[in-house]
């Protein structure tokens, strides 16, 4: 089938550089899309490990629903909303917003966008685990993929409000920098999760009668760490893959984007390492011992923190950003739980929200090209705009859903477990969990405490931040 050298005498070889680049770039984009899709079970395991055995089926169900309904919704609605919002907030035209639906050449790109959308939606799940009504969750995830997240993308990558051509971007003479979605994807999901956890209320037993938080251990730290590693694997797709151009065509000839790819890959790696290392050290410092779950959370926070920054910052800047994300996850979690009194089960606000905001706002500080004030202002404004939109939209949706279907399962269902109540199943039918541990959680600590041990003061670390 290949062109014979004899033929090439007659028809001179014609290799269009753009086609070569397109071919290579699309192989790359497809592969990283698959990796990002694989983050879905990563999130499922991360959350499943952090809930009690009786709620694992609900976690799995939410996660599958995010994907199976999310893709359908994002194809027929979400991706179009991106274009519309992008156009409306930059003075463009909304014509053709849904043209991709009938253009096969647009479908690889659509799928590449869809895996980011589903990531944002799935993040919410971890915050509202163990007590949210399944129907309410499903409706929320539908609105998340149909509107809440697409609007954020419209504001940014869709060329709208915060982009260089958008109303705010143009006013400040810069375009909002968030390379792979530290705020667009992660902070959006993390903030929506926080709001949802607030509206749904804390799990029974999460706060004692004095309003002090009481831990509710999950059923498997192993699953949480395995989920973390799967997420990190997918994240290479997420971050490095967003550098979707391997070969660029400039002036008719091909250029290899090796430096850009190298920077993105390196900063992702160092950010992850520094985030994990800082959380390990922080937990060892405040709890006396390095904690696997904190370390895993910090590793993810490090990744979130650099996700927007990877091509823009120096390698040591990336390591600092990642380290900062990892360092903040412990106090941010305690702030959420102890100050805001929000029962964010998997700490998604600390991991995805705070790290995403800080990492993205500080990009100009560590920029390869040096600090630019207008860019910094835009970054801060952008983070604020995205956060505000997400808070407002989530709140409206949640209020509506509360009156429509109710946000929360019954108290009885919550004690029995959502697996039985919402789905009629037992995830581990041969396993009778050791319910006793749960019921001893600090229940009669005061009276029976015979060890005279130290007070649980470490958990108040966030108060000092």
């Amino acid at each position, binding site marked *: 089938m290949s062109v014979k050298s004899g033929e090439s005498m007659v028809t001179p070889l014609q290799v269009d550089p753009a086609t070569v680049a397109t071919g290579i770039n699309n192989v790359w984009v497809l592969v990283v899309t698959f990796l990002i899709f694989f983050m879905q079970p990563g999130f499922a395991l991360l959350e499943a490990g952090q809930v009690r055995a009786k709620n694992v089926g609900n976690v799995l169900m939410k996660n599958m629903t995010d994907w199976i309904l999310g893709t359908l919704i994002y194809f027929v609605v979400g991706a179009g909303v991106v274009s519309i919002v992008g156009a409306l907030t930059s003075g463009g035209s909304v014509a053709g917003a849904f043209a991709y639906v009938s253009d096969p050449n647009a479908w690889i790109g659509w799928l590449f966008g869809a895996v980011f959308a589903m990531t944002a939606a799935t993040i919410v799940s971890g915050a509202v685990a163990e007590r949210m009504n399944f129907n309410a969750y499903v409706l929320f995830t539908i609105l998340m993929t149909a509107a809440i997240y697409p609007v954020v993308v419209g504001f940014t990558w869709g060329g709208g409000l915060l982009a260089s051509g958008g109303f705010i971007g143009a006013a400040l003479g810069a375009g909002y920098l968030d390379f792979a979605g530290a705020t667009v994807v992660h902070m959006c999901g993390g903030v929506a999760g926080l709001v949802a956890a607030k509206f749904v209320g804390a799990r029974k037993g999460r706060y004692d009668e004095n309003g002090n938080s009481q831990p509710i251990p999950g059923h498997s730290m192993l699953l949480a760490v395995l989920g973390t590693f799967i997420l990190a694997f997918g994240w290479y797709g997420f971050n490095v893959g967003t550098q979707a151009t391997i070969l660029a065509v400039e002036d008719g000839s091909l250029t290899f984007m090796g430096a850009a790819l190298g920077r993105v890959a390196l900063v992702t790696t160092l950010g992850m390492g520094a985030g994990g290392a800082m959380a390990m050290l922080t937990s060892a410092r405040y709890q006396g011992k390095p904690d696997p779950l904190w370390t895993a959370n910090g590793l993810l926070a490090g990744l979130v923190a650099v996700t927007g920054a990877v091509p823009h910052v120096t390698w040591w800047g990336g390591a600092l950003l990642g380290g900062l994300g990892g360092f903040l996850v412990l106090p941010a979690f305690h702030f959420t739980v102890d100050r805001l009194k929000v029962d964010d089960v998997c700490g998604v606000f600390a991991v995805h929200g705070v790290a995403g905001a800080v990492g993205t706002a500080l990009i100009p500080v560590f920029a390869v090209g040096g600090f630019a004030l207008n860019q910094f202002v835009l970054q801060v404004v952008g983070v604020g705009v995205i956060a505000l939109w997400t808070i407002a939209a989530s709140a409206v949706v949640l209020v509506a859903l509360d009156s429509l279907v109710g946000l929360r399962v019954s108290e009885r269902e919550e*004690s029995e477990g959502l697996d039985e109540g919402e789905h009629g*199943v*037992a995830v581990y039918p041969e396993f*009778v969990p050791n*319910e*006793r541990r749960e019921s001893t959680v600090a*229940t*009669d600590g005061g009276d*029976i405490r015979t060890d005279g041990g130290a007070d649980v003061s470490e958990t108040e670390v966030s108060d000092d931040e």
Partner: protein
Amino acid sequence: MSDEIKLVMAYIRPDKLSDVKQALAEVGAPSLTVTNVSGRGSQPAKKGQWRGEEYTVDLHQKVKVECVVADIPADDVADAILEAASTDEKGDGKVFVLPVDSAHQIRTGKSGPDAV
């Protein structure tokens, strides 16, 4: 009376354990041993399912509490459990008192009521 040793043995709901523990501590019998058990009684059977096929689970998860007492009357202990473990719904469980011939503490080697 006080040198008679009794074993108070109760089958209760798992989520009542912490109330029962508190009640026993208050009545002066903090030492106890608990076991995960399953029981059948008047409580209706539950239905389980696996891929939509249903099965009946007539054994419910319960917790067995054992508390051996000597100085404190067994009836006081039983009463404390009765009060703490009740929800007024089927499945609350039972308390039984059994005679104990002798008791020994492993650490000290003490025997009799003192060992309890």
